[in-house]
């Protein structure tokens, strides 16, 4: 087993563990922290796939900014203790079964896809994930979505103001 494979399995396991822990943590703060673990694992995967830019952005944006925001809100609301009383077990089971079956059949279908059997992801090599390449493509072919995203941000900003500002 090569280092890459080793790392792959490790990161996968970490991501899985983090996800599960996030799911079952009673304390929202722990959930946030476990989710950050997942993000780190995923960033590790990005690195394995030689997508360095995304790995960094993922850490900065997700693990950094977004999750901090979450933490912030949770703290703000003083939700750090176990505020979630036992949910309807039936619904929990149903949810788990539904999600589980979704997973099973999706995996079944996707793994069954014949044209995927022979393919594999290029690890380590390939430099498309480098910032130089990404930047060039972003500002050439993808300049329109890039610009338009600004509208999205503007509306999010306006929204945050409209919704968040304590009015009257």
């Amino acid at each position, binding site marked *: 087993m090569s280092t890459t494979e080793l790392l792959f399995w490790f990161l996968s396991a970490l991501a899985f563990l983090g996800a599960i822990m996030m799911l079952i943590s009673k304390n929202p703060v722990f959930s946030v922290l476990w989710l950050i673990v997942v993000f780190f694992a995923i960033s590790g995967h990005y690195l394995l796939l030689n997508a360095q830019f995304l790995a960094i952005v993922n850490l900065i944006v997700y693990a950094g900014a977004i999750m901090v925001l979450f933490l912030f809100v949770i703290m703000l609301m003083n939700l750090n203790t176990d505020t979630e009383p036992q949910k309807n077990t039936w619904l929990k089971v*149903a949810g788990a079964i539904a999600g589980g079956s979704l997973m099973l*059949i999706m995996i079944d279908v996707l793994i069954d896809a014949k044209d995927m059997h022979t393919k594999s992801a290029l690890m380590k090599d390939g430099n498309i994930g480098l910032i130089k390449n990404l930047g060039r493509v972003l500002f050439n072919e993808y300049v329109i979505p890039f610009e338009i995203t600004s509208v999205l941000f503007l509306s999010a900003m306006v929204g945050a103001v409209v919704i968040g500002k304590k009015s009257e």
Partner: protein
Amino acid sequence: MNTFSHLVYLVPLFPLIGFLINGLGRRSLSKSMIGVIGCGVILASFIVSVGIFFEARNFGPTPVIVNLFDFIKVAAFNIPFSFQVDQLSSLFLLIITGVGFLIHLYSTAYMKEEETQHYGRYFSYLNLFVFSMLLLVLGANYLIMFIGWEGVGLCSYLLIGYWFKNNEYNYAARKAFVMNRIGDLGFLLAVFWILQKSGALTFTEVFANTGAFTSFDVTAITLLLFVGAMGKSAQIPLYTWLPDAMAGPTPVSALIHAATMVTAGIYMIVRSNVLYSMAPFTQAVVAIIGLATALLAATIAIKQNDIKKVLAYSTVSQLGYMFLGLGVGAYTGAVFHVMTHAFFKALLFLAAGSVIHSIHNQQDIRFMGGLKKYMPITHLTFLLACFAIAGIPPFSGFFSKDEILAAAYANNPILWGVGVFTAALTAFYMFRLYAMTFLGKFRGTEEQEHHLHESPSAMTIPLIVLAVLSVIGGFVGIPEVFASNSHALEHFLSPIIVKGADAHHLEHSTEYMLMGVSVGLALIAIFYAWIKFSKHPEIGEPSGTGKVLANKWYIDELYDSILAKPLLALGRVLNNVIEKSGIDGLVNGVGKSVQYAGSKIRLLQSGQVGNYILMMVLSVVLMILMIFYGHNMTPLIDKIFR
């Protein structure tokens, strides 16, 4: 040549005009004016009819057909509105307008006490009736005949229910109409059948083209026509309306239910004798039904106490005779009997009316008696009529009845035997009626007795005229046995009667014997009744068999319980159960189930985000299953959706 015959449309036109004038002007015209118009138009028709009659003697086998206009002209067939003048119709014209005129005349006096507007209404109805009857006999095809056929039904409805305030009378009127309609349906179906097979309805064409019919067709057509005749001419099983129809004013009974309308069935069958001669089975049916009706009605008449009811049942019975005649092929005899019957039965009714008139609407013979001395003319004419109906020679009834009985004997002696027995019964109940009414002592109240009087001349003159006719009317048809070639009527009608159909060959001795037996029996019955009821009028309530007879064999009750009540019950069930809960319930049920589905489905909208997403995920799972694993379910899905 044939001037009158080509003016034949005037015959029905006059009564129609009378109907319109009297009907529309019933408020503005005076009573005498109404009377004059009412009678005048009929008289005018009568005069034209007489002219036609004398022309018709020379027609030979070709009738005069007067086309007025196209009535129903479509691609498949053309039914003109046309009149046919021949021997048969001209004879009937005479009877209808002649007897009709007398009855109109009689009515002017009889109905004197009505309010003017009702008086006008009465005469307009009478005129309309005559109009319809004339259409019936003049029609050159089955459809025009049917128009008159239904028309007389309508008029009888209107006239029976003339006193519309009385609901029992209305009920009787409705009964008459509905029963007639049952018959009419048979008639109508026969008409369709004829039309389908021969493509025409005109008598001349149909009868010239009998090859178009198979024997099944003919049997079916004639049977269906006979159903129509049953309704109109009150034969079993559709006879019960006639006695009830006595609810109308007495002249109406005379006109409609004795002399003319009920003979429509006979007229129609004689008219179709070509077809009937081709259908022996139907003839047998007609004979048996006719005879059964004659017997049944006669038995009932024995125990009736209402003067008009007795006469009504006697009418039914006599009609039965006529059908017997038709059934055994004695068409001329039947027509002959129609004629004589028109005379004496009209006379009987009018005389009865005279009686009722004088004792203030008392119709129950148990409260009459001894009227002989108060009402001599009425008494005498009534007595003559009774002899006529009883078949005592040389009164008219004897000849006609004898002709039918002779023909019946030739056909089957049993028919003759029952016929003679019925004739004896007839004699019996008629003289029972006579005796209880005119003989003995008056059994009514003092006040009634005080008022008893002979009727005015407008009423007695028709009685006298009819009495004369009843006495001598039979001489137009003297049997061969008395004098050869003396049957004037047979000669007159011969062009329209199928050759050979009317022939019956009896030994002269046999014929004398038959006459002797029937007359003898009748005389015995008369004698017995005369003695019995002049001394001991039957006043008490009958019992045993008598009760059954007095209650008309409970036939009305039977019909009520096997037809009317179940039908009404069915109507009720359909209305309350099938309609409301069944069909409408189903329709409403669809609406309700939509609402119910709505009320249940909306519970899925639980308000819980978790549930919503769960539902979404489940749907995703199902969709994936369907798309990717669907090939195993394909047959099933195909079955459901393709």
